[in-house]
């Protein structure tokens, strides 16, 4: 939004009215831009988030208490904004003088679309009825309303009295009311039918041209007319109900607030009239304000401030709630010591030598003076009315007189402690009167025509003779504010001293009151205000928001508590502890600080003396409106983003700016902010800035919260928030972790499975080895071998006993070798050859020349090589087993090293006709054992002539 140059003028003006003077400070804001042709404000509207929107000849502006900023438009709309309205579902609609209708979306103006097209004349006013139908009043085409997103029209053909509509408003009682060039039209749309009833001069309307209308809080309709001034609307309205001799010109706008009617007139700028519910036609002019000569529109904001606008000027006028009750002479003003509001709605105060009674007649204050001759030479210090219109008047040095203004009687009390004494305060609870004097406290109970007095001067009771204030509280408790001994309380004739309670504060207490919740509040000499809830003490000082520590008065004001200072009045909400202020900018306060010089009525009003006047101030939800705060927009990397709370940002979208604005038009400069980014900031951070930047936020769930206050007390402050999520980068996301874990798990599983398989393999190989050893053994103890060997032996024993002995030795050697080597993984080639040698000897003896085993291995190879045990023996045995051995076809087995690390065992092939059973087992065993040793593979070559097995040698 484009910021405009702002000029602020403070204008002090004194307005004299027939009855009383009103001193008010208004403030003028200029909507200025660089162009020669300044925007003129045509309409004012306050949205729910608190901003005042100004529809101007140059577009829509927002006013935040300091600046005007213009709303940008999606499409160029070259037209003045003539109407602004916010619907129940928080859509802000904008009507233009060319008939266009737009909506405010994301701080920018977007044209709506209707199949029917826009009206061709200005949209003067927009409203919404209880069924949600939105109504538009146009300057020449009657009334339009939206139903099912379709524009429908009501004009003179339907019975409307005139097609030129100035203003359209809805009230639950009357319906949609349109002010036109020919009277008032009340319209509704039900069950597809239009209903219109009209009120024109024929029905008694004083003027047919009704330019403005206004509904009061009580749903009373007021009319502002072309020539006949203003009038309340009645169905049986009469011709003479207008304002007689109205000479202020046409009424452009009007509004009614509490007891005043504000009228934007054609000739006399802003006219303010006193408003009495019962009055019929005459309006009593209160004052006028000519700051802006031609006022187009008025607005009462939620703080109760009345705004007026015309040309490029926006005027903040008096805040409602503060009214001047009575003008005092400076001499009177200096001598007022006590104000007292009585049950008959009269306000009493002292004047030299007497009393003045103010009372309301025709809603205006009238005064009555009473002389009190007894007090002509002294000062009246305290007032209290007991039942029966008996006014107890306390003085300095002259005791107390009971005065009855109806019976005109004056009775001086003769009680010794009171006579010729000083009175500090008087109060009562219906049946007993409590009087505090310099000598102690006295109670007076009426008995017949007399009073029964009791003195409470014993310091052991109250604790101190000097009592500033007495409170007759609930549950028949009497509270005493003492000078030095804190608060004493009397219940069932027994005294209690709050001083003895833990946490008690304040020895010198000036005022005590009890709020609607039963809490006791008291002011102290230097400890500010303390709230006592029956258990604990809560202190309110300047750091909680009090205007100052010098407090002269403490009053109940409706649901609130008013704190009177010399130059300020603070309003405490006892439910929340929030403190708000009377708008000092509108009236400089110079308050009479006498302890008794302020009072309150049974309603919302407090009364006090400031300067030379007595004022009343109405304390209600409007006047204690606290500031509110809105998050205007959010920027991502300095770019405006269209987003609402709950947005998700990706991990790199982490530089965010939050723009927020607090709204408190009475004193915008008092606004203070605190912000906190939940799950980032630990504590609330104070700021006066309107923007907060968070660069480089880590991923997480955040809520940006901002709250606003008029002082350092942020408890129960108005707060707004924007929640958002910055997502983790994908490699930090849960789904990524899960996937990664799954993949890792799968890999690990595969690895373990692989390893298990490997181990199983090894075990299998080990088994194979054992198997092969068994096999070898089994082969070697093969009965055939033994049988053959023994047969050979038998023949040798007979023919050649020496050889036989040797043969037996060889058998023994052979078996010993087997037993010796079978468990080993490797043996030296030497050992293996020696086993083979034994075996060959045995077999050669058996087969004689049919078997020839040749071993031809180089000695250095023999010396350096190792081999799994019995491999060569097994191969030889295999050859013998599978081949026919005879003299004709001898079996030749060649064993030689073909390389440094390889022995070839080769035999010629002469296969037996019937193959041996279990054939191939021996070879397989050898192969598996080599696999187990992880050395080179055993290779087997088998051609038609030779069977060759190449055995790798293992070098150590």
């Amino acid at each position, binding site marked *: 939004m484009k910021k405009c140059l702002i000029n602020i003028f403070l204008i002090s003006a004194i307005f004299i009215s027939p009855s009383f003077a009103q001193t008010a400070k208004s403030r003028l804001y200029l909507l200025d831009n660089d162009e020669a042709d300044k925007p003129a404000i045509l309409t004012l509207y306050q949205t729910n988030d608190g901003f005042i929107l100004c529809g101007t000849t140059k577009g829509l502006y927002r006013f935040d208490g300091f600046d005007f900023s213009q709303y940008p438009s999606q499409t160029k709309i070259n037209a003045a904004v003539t109407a602004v309205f916010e619907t129940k579902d928080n859509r802000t609609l904008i009507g233009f003088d060319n008939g266009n209708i737009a909506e405010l979306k994301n701080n920018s103006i977007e044209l709506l679309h209707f199949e029917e097209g826009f009206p*061709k004349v200005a949209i003067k006013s927009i409203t919404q009825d209880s069924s949600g139908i939105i109504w538009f009043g146009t300057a020449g085409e009657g009334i339009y309303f939206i139903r099912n997103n379709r524009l429908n029209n009501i004009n003179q*053909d339907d019975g409307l009295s005139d097609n030129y509509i100035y203003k359209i408003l809805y009230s639950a009682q009357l319906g949609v009311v349109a002010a036109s060039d020919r009277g008032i039209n009340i319209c509704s749309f039900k069950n597809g039918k239009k209903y219109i009833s009209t009120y024109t001069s024929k029905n008694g309307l004083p003027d047919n041209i009704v330019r403005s209308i206004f509904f009061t809080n009580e749903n009373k309709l007021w009319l502002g007319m072309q020539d006949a001034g203003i009038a309340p609307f009645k169905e049986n309205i009469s011709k003479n109900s207008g304002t007689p001799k109205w000479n202020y010109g046409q009424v452009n706008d009007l509004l009614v607030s509490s007891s005043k009617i504000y009228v934007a007139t054609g000739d006399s700028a802003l006219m303010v009239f006193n408003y009495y519910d019962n009055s019929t036609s005459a309006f009593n002019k209160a004052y006028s304000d000519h700051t802006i000569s031609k006022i187009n529109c008025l607005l009462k904001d939620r703080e109760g401030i009345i705004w007026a606008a015309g040309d490029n000027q926006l005027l903040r006028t008096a805040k409602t709630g503060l009214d001047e009750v009575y003008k005092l002479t400076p001499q009177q003003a200096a001598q007022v010591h006590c104000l007292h509001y009585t049950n008959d709605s009269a306000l009493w105060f002292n004047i030299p030598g007497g009393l003045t009674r103010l009372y309301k007649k025709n809603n205006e204050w009238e005064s009555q003076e009473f002389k009190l001759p007894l007090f002509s030479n002294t000062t009246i210090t305290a007032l209290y009315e007991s039942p029966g219109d008996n006014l107890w008047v306390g003085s300095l040095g002259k005791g107390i007189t009971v005065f009855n203004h109806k019976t005109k009687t004056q009775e001086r009390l003769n009680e010794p402690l009171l006579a010729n004494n000083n009175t500090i305060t008087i109060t009562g609870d219906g049946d007993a009167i409590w009087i505090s004097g310099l000598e102690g406290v006295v109670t007076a109970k009426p008995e017949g025509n007399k009073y029964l007095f009791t003195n409470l001067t014993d310091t052991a009771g109250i604790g101190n003779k000097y009592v500033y204030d007495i409170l007759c509280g609930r549950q028949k408790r009497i509270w005493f504010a003492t000078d030095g001994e804190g608060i004493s309380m009397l219940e069932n004739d027994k005294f209690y001293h709050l001083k003895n309670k833990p946490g008690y504060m304040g020895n010198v207490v000036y005022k005590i009151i009890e709020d609607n919740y039963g809490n006791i509040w008291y002011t102290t000499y230097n400890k500010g205000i303390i709230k006592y809830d029956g258990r604990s003490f809560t202190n309110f000082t300047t750091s909680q928001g009090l205007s100052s520590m010098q407090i002269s008065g403490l009053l109940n004001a409706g649901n609130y508590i008013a704190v009177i200072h010399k130059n300020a009045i603070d309003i405490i909400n006892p439910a929340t502890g929030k403190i708000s202020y009377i708008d000092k900018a509108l009236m400089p306060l110079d308050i009479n600080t006498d302890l008794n010089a302020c009072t309150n009525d049974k309603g919302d009003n407090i009364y006090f003396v400031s300067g030379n006047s007595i004022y009343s101030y109405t304390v209600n939800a409007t006047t204690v409106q606290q500031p509110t705060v809105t998050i205007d927009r959010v920027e991502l990397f300095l770019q405006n983003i269209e987003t609402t709370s709950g947005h998700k940002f990706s991990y790199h979208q982490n530089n965010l700016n939050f723009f927020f604005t607090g709204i408190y038009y009475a004193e915008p400069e008092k606004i203070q902010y605190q912000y906190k980014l939940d799950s980032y900031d630990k504590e609330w951070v104070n700021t006066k800035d309107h923007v907060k930047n968070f660069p480089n936020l880590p991923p997480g769930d955040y809520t940006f919260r901002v709250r606003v206050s008029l002082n350092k007390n942020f408890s129960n402050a108005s707060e707004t928030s924007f929640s958002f999520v910055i997502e983790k980068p994908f490699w930090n996301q849960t789904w990524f972790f899960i996937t990664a874990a799954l993949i890792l798990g799968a890999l690990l599983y595969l690895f373990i499975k692989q390893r298990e398989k490997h181990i199983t393999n090894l075990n299998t190989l080990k088994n194979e080895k054992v198997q092969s050893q068994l096999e070898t053994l089994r082969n070697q103890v093969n009965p055939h071998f033994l049988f053959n060997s023994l047969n050979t032996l038998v023949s040798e024993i007979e023919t050649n006993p020496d050889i036989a002995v040797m043969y037996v030795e060889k058998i023994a050697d052979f078996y010993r070798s087997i037993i010796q080597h079978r468990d080993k993984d490797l043996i030296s080639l030497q050992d293996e050859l020696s086993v083979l040698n034994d075996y060959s000897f045995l077999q050669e003896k058996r087969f004689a020349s049919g078997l020839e085993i040749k071993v031809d291995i180089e000695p250095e190879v023999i010396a350096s090589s190792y081999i799994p045990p019995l491999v060569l023996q097994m191969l030889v045995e295999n050859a013998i087993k599978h081949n026919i051995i005879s003299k004709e076809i001898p079996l030749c087995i060649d064993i030689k090293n073909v390389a440094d690390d390889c022995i070839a065992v080769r035999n010629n092939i002469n296969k037996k006709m019937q193959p041996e059973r279990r054939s191939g087992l021996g070879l397989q065993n050898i192969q598996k054992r080599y696999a187990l040793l992880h050395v080179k593979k055993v290779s087997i070559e088998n051609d038609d002539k030779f069977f060759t097995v190449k055995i790798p040698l293992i070098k150590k």
Partner: protein
Amino acid sequence: MFNLIQRMRVRVLLLFILIAAASAFKNQPSQLYQITSGKISFKSDAPLEVIKASSTELMGLLDIGKKNFSLKIDVHSFQGFNSPLQKEHFNENYMESDKYPYASFNGKIIEDVDLSADGNYDLRTKGTLTIHNVPQERIIKTAVTVKQKVIIIHSNFTVLLSDHNIPIPTVVNQKLANEIKVEVNATFEPR
């Protein structure tokens, strides 16, 4: 007949417009125009089927002095459906053309214009649109071209079937849109 019931989930529709009657103004004959050629077409753009039809039998009168007008059309005259069966459903099930043979739009021009002068105008008309014997007040935007006493109008608008008590059986709601787009073109000449 059986086949017909089976294909009951069918098609459609609509409507429109016309005529009039303004014989009361014969004393100002130059002010009164009547349609010499007119065409009205509609389109239902449902997710599963597009239905279109049109009629050239648009009748109408326009009083450029009083700025009121009346248009009328015989619902039976719509042609160009996807199938004869569709047309039958249009007339029998939806428009009930035998009971309510005409659709009409009677009303006034909202804007204050002089249609006797040549020019192009964007106007809005406000009147009562009666379809299926259900009147609805409508504002309808119309582009108007006046050239040498010939007035040509062109208008697009939509009609909600629900506005005119034309029920859409749930079995065909994917084939029949509730919102029907209507286009009107007509040429008026002095009577």
